[in-house]
Structures are given as structure tokens and as C-alpha cells.
């Protein structure tokens, strides 16, 4: 017992927490840095429209435009306005693509599977996403 007791070199500091404050401060800086580095959302400039497995075309987001696509189910209308894009209307049953609303960040995507239409926002660099892995 005595031998074991002797081994103890660590002591509890009574009032000084300088080291701890330093560690906490550094980790806070790291977290802020991580948020800035990995969570920066870039506003895209181009929307890519995919239709029936092929790229239908790339359209600038800085224009007012309505794209009408006739698919198997019916007509899908894509609207581009104020640097954003959305599905204005879709013929599918669930209307998931319409209800997701406007998208404008790089890497964001809207997909309508029944009508085989998808739109994706592109920017200068390709953003990470789990779909293109």
C-alpha cells in the first residue's frame, strides 16, 4: 500500500486552473474553426437539370425562367427566380419535390423519381454529399 501511495505524483490544483482554461480556450477555437471550415455553405450559380437519366441542361440561377418537362407521368415545371430554383409543379402523387421548396446552396438537390427529373445546384467547387459517393 505504501509503495503504491508513493507512486502518486498527480495533485489536485487548489486554485489555479490556467492549464484548463487554456485547453478549453483552444478547443473552443478549434470548434469555431471547424464550424467555419466544414459548414460553409456556398451559394450556387448554376442549376443542373437531369431528365430521364441524362443531363437536360445547365441553367444560370440569375434569371427568371420556367422549364417545362414532359415525362412519363406528366408535366414537371421547374422555376428559376432570384438565384434559387424549385419544382413549381409535378405530376407525381406524393409531391415531395414540390414541398421541399426553394434550393440555392451548392450540392442541394431535388429529385422527382416518378417523373425521372432531378435538379442540382452547382457552384465553383463540388460540395460533399452522400449521393455521389
Amino acid at each position, binding site marked *: *500500500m505504501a509503495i*503504491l501511495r508513493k*507512486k*502518486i*505524483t*498527480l*495533485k*489536485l*490544483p487548489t486554485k*489555479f*486552473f*490556467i*492549464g*484548463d482554461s*487554456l*485547453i*478549453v480556450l483552444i*478547443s*473552443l477555437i*478549434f*470548434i469555431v474553426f*471547424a*464550424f467555419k471550415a*466544414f*459548414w460553409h455553405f456556398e451559394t450556387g450559380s448554376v442549376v443542373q437539370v437531369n431528365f430521364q437519366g441524362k443531363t437536360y441542361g445547365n441553367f444560370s440561377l440569375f434569371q427568371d425562367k420556367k422549364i417545362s418537362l414532359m415525362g412519363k407521368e406528366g408535366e414537371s415545371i421547374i422555376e428559376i427566380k432570384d438565384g434559387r430554383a424549385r419544382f413549381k409543379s409535378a405530376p407525381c402523387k406524393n409531391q415531395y419535390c414540390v414541398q421541399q421548396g426553394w434550393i440555392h446552396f451548392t450540392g442541394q438537390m431535388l429529385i422527382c423519381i416518378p417523373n425521372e427529373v432531378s435538379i442540382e445546384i452547382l457552384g465553383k467547387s463540388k460540395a*460533399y*454529399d*452522400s449521393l455521389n*459517393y
Partner: protein
Amino acid sequence: MRSALKYWANQKLMTRSIIKIKTTLLDHQIAQMSAIAIGLSLIESVLPSPMPGVKPGIANIITLYAVYRFSFKTAMWVSVLRVFATSLILGQFLSPAFMLSLSGSVLSLLTLYFAIKLPSKFFSPVGLSVLSSFAHIAGQLILVRIWLIPHASIYYLIPIYGTAALLFGFINGWITYRLLQHHNSI
């Protein structure tokens, strides 16, 4: 020949000895601390978590406590035994969850090994706990990156896990500090 065998069997029966394992003080410390750590781990596994991997890690209080109260060797044993025993009890032995837990613990222990060499005048369990919880999540993320999800998209999670590590590391460290103070052992 036959009688010799009989004699031998008889002797064997007569002098049946009880196997006694000699335990040292270290063994007792490890056993006690591990038991508490496993208990805490099991309690924690029942608690719901907002996203996989974000857990308070209250069993690390025991690891840190063992470092201060006893020795680094005890803490190492406690931590590794805890990982193995908990995964066996929960039925996740050798599953990805177990591997993540192990990699996190190993890196966190490695960090503690160097952290306890810091001047203890300025560094309390709070700082050490924050350091080790960061190491823990780093170990897990490295394994996820190279083995489970080999894709860069998991970098999105670093800020969330970092925040959780700081928060829970701080709380765990504070609890350890109060425990050590309360026991007035050092």
C-alpha cells in the same frame, strides 16, 4: 500397473487441492473500478442519444478517477476491461460499435498517458477530461473515415462531435474533480 494407477487416482482424490489465485492490491483496485465503470456504461447505453456517437461517456469519470487515485496502469486496465465487458454484455462484441469504442478508448488513453506528464499545478482533471474526450472522438472518427464510411462527407460531423466532446468532457472532468476533492484522497 493397475494398482499403481488406482493408488495414483486415490492420491489425486485425497489431496485434491483448492486452486487459489493470489491477488494483488492492483487487481482489487482494477476489479472495483471496472465494476463501477461497466455499471455506468450500461446505464448510459439505455439512455437515448440525439445522434449516434453523441454520448456523455460517464464511464470515463472512473478512468480519470483511477489515474488520479491509483495509477495510469490501473486506469488503462479499467478502460480496456470496461470496453470488452460492456460489449460482451450488450452483445456487440467485435461489432462496429465495439471497434469504435475500442479505438476511441485507446487514443484517449494514449492522450492521457502524455497529459498526466503536464504540470499538475496548472492542469486539473477538467482539462485532462476535455483532452481525452477530444481524443476519444478523434479515434472514432478516424476509424469511421478509414473503415466504415470512407468518404469525406463525415467531416461535416466534426463540429457537432467537437462541441459534444467539449461539453461532456468538461462536465465529466468537473465531476471527477469534485469526487477527488470529496474523497480528500490526494
